[in-house]
């Protein structure tokens, strides 16, 4: 047999074992690459704390387990469960508003008596695109005006509930995950362009009705450097860390910004600054490339999926994952305002690892349950 390396790779990815376990090898390999890089950076960012790295590994392993379990579930069952799940999670969101457990002034958690506590809003990030994709699954595309209107209502209700907790970051991500489905379903360009044109007008009008203190809050939000001992401190320090790293970086565990604790939150939201300082532009490039590998595979799965539901869901989940990464790197490097979005699968802690890995479980299920051609 004379096979090229590419054919070898393909035959490996089609191996019986993977088919049997419903693992998509290319996706899994890209994820492992991303996570390993993340762990190396975390060791440095945590002040060489082995305990923290171990705990993160446990979380990642749990994430992979979740992914594997979901990959076994054929997409047709997900389709059927979508509306039920949506109603259930929306009910839990109401529960959070009524009986939620507070943390840092916001009610996000729901306590299961005798069990762990969890955040329904986190699960909504997955259930929202499932619901919208379900809605379009038996309707012809592109959507009519009435359908678009209905979908917007479905999106806005849970988004407002999450925003009321208050958790602005998550509510925006949930909204985005639903809007992506609408976009992929063929929302006419006319609508997209006019929404884009109307946004500045709406912002202008809003600015004029706002109170002075609210305007002030928006200004500090847009320009944190006006508050150098507060939120501006983080951004000044993270830019210094990244910039001083140069092309090749200062070397692993050698970053003065990270190791001397000039960088707050260095192991959580601002972990990319540690990477930028110690591994330079090269390191950041490799990390972004690893993300793009994952995203490319996700979009491929979406494009080749068998039905509307799978296509729309896979595409939206992948694009939401990209938004995470873009917003995080954008905010740490100072081109976006600081919102508390972690770097997916790399930042320390957070329940988000489980939900993100659940989305990849859904992608794998969609890919591996295709009828053999």
């Amino acid at each position, binding site marked *: 047999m004379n096979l090229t390396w590419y054919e070898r790779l393909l035959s490996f990815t089609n191996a019986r074992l993977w088919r049997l376990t419903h693992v998509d090898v290319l996706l899994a390999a890209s994820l492992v690459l991303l996570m390993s890089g993340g762990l190396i950076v975390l060791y440095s960012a*945590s*002040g060489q*704390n082995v*305990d*923290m790295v171990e705990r993160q590994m446990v979380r990642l392993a749990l994430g992979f387990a979740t992914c594997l379990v979901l990959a076994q579930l054929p997409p047709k069952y997900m389709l059927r469960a979508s509306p039920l799940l949506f109603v259930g999670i929306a009910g839990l969101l109401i529960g959070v508003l009524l009986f939620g457990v*507070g*943390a*840092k002034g916001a009610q996000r958690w729901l306590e299961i008596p005798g069990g762990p506590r969890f955040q329904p809003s986190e699960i909504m990030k997955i259930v929202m695109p499932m619901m919208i994709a379900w809605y379009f699954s*038996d*309707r*012809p*595309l592109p959507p009519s005006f009435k359908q678009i209107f209905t979908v917007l209502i479905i999106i806005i209700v849970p988004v407002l509930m999450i925003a009321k907790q208050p958790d602005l970051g998550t509510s925006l991500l949930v909204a985005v995950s639903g809007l992506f489905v609408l*976009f*992929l*379903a*063929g929302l006419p360009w006319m609508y997209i362009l006019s929404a884009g044109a109307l946004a500045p007008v709406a912002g202008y009008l809003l600015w004029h009705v706002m109170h002075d203190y609210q305007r002030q809050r928006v200004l500090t939000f847009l320009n944190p450097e006006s508050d150098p*001992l507060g939120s501006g*401190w983080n951004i000044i*320090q993270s*830019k*210094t*860390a*990244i*910039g*001083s*790293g*140069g*092309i090749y970086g200062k070397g692993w565990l050698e970053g*003065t*910004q990270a*190791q*001397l*604790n*000039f960088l*707050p939150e260095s*192991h959580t939201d601002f972990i990319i600054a540690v990477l*930028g300082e110690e591994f*330079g*532009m090269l390191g*950041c*490039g490799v990390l*972004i490339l690893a993300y*793009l590998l994952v*995203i*490319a595979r996700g*979009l491929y799965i*979406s*494009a080749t999926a068998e039905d*509307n539901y799978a*296509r*729309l869901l896979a*595409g939206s989940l992948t*694009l939401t994952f*990209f938004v995470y990464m*873009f917003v995080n*790197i*954008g905010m740490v*490097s*100072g*081109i976006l305002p600081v919102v508390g979005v972690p770097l997916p699968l790399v930042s320390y802690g957070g329940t988000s690892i489980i939900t993100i890995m659940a989305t990849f479980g859904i992608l794998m299920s969609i890919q591996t349950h295709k009828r053999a051609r």
Partner: protein
Amino acid sequence: MANKHHIFRNYRQEQSLTQRRVIFAAVFVLLLSLVLMSRLFFLQVVEHERYVTKADDNRVMLVTEPPPRGLIYDTNGVVLADNRPIHSLTITPERVADFSKLKKELSDILNISEDEWSAYDQRRKEYRRPYQSITLKSQLTDQEWARVSVDLYKLDGVQVEAQLTRFYPYGEAFAHAIGYVGRITQKDLQRVDSQSYQGAQFIGKTGIEGFYESKLFGRPGISKVEVNARGRIMEELERQNPVPGENLHLYLDARLQQYAYDLLGDYKGSVVALDPKNGGILALVSKPGFDPNLFVRGISSKNYAALRDSKRLPLFNRALRGGYPPASTIKPFMALAGLEYGFSSWNERYYAKGYYQINPNGRRYRDWKREGHGWINLERSIIESVDTYYYQLAHKMGITPIHNFLSQFGFGERTVLDLNGAGKGLLPSNEWKKARYKESWYPGDSVNVGIGQGFMVATPIQIATAVTAIANRGDYYSPRMVSTIDKDTPDFGLKGEDHKIKIKDSRNWEHMVKAMRRVVTDSKGTARRLQGASYSIAGKTGTGQVFSLQEDEEYDAKNLEKRLHDHALFIGFAPSEKPEIVVFAIFENGGSSSKPADLTKQLFDAYLKDDYPKKYNYLKGDRS
């Protein structure tokens, strides 16, 4: 729906529509990634030199400094929770070359326990700022401090730091009212702003300390410090001073609290004293208590196990959580309920035998007085505490009117405003029994509830609160600990359930107070031993059964283990015309109600006549 479209749908076209959108999205993803890469290029290549200089010059670090905690005062200005300077031995791990050598050297100088070493190891693993010191041994004695200081120069990375620690000067009598602070756990950090608590030593856990944590904590200071290349602090450049926590002023009277605690003697039990004019808690006693100072810097597992496993349950807050049968102290409320719904009247006469039966041949519910009380009326039923009167009254009423009327007094609810962890007690109802036992409510259940036994359970703070409403002739106040907070207006956001309890004939209030007054003054009154005070006392006795007597069985204290003796209860207020203090007292297994009655009178003498034993002068404060 789906089938209707089926014929007209072009699936191929729909597929390629979404595929085109996916491709468009992919291009967009690539473009945005390019934006990120060019931003990185700008920072890391174009501006690189500038940021290298900036990083090299970066000798400035932010350090948070925990604020001094607010103090807690009693009503007369006695400090109940104080801050005290201590000296602690701390280690900076980055500066220690050889830890096992250091460990040996330190052990030669000081006596450091295994617990302290393992606590150090634990904290070493937690996230912290580089060069932040970790406490190894806190509260060094003067001798220890002197001994370490001599050798400090050769112990690299070891230092003695002055810190403020929480101190509760009056210890165990106050533990259940004031609560305590303890070491901050990861769980605690989830409910507060963890940034502010960086460097903080402890956090309020229970009682006032827990409930008012946000007021007591204050705002941490931030200082800009210059560090050397290895991260050691060289100089302080700029600082925002910490803002101390706010001081709390309680209604609690320290002398009354300590006196009540001591008067309980060796008994387990609880005393609650309230100011009926506003619901202020004058004393909140649960005995036995414990030394709250043990918890401040992390309690050792040995000490904790001893407290937790003690049969006397010192950690259990009886005043807030103890569920007791209110026994005969419930009778004034039952009587008012009967009057309200027309099941009894002040004039109607009743012949009280030694027992009551629902059916002629049924079970005999016995009165405490074997031969019965003879002809009585409602007032006498309070004075002599006639059980059979309340058996028949509750039987006639049934549980629903009882439930509705008593719930207005706070039974079955958490009444206390500013303490966490209060119990709800149990005010039973038909629905409750169905849900709990899948059985309907039997007439016999009502009979038992009539004398405050059976399913009915109430906490000391609940009973005291309810009595306040009678003392006030209907004005109900939710009990509260804090009267004022520094800087804040007196109304600092505590919203009580304060209301006027409405009854059809408001003269019943005055009549009931008169009946409770005669419990003391009447020659047959169950609290006649309290006669002779220079002010007027109103009250009601109670004896709560710890175990159920069989029908016709008699309570025989002599041959009964002490833990099965009846609980002794008393409720009282004085002066009865215009009450200034309400007291509830319970002696667990105290036998007869003479003990709590005497205690109540002594508290009244103290509070109203300033008649305290001399030894309590140290708790007098400067404002009394």
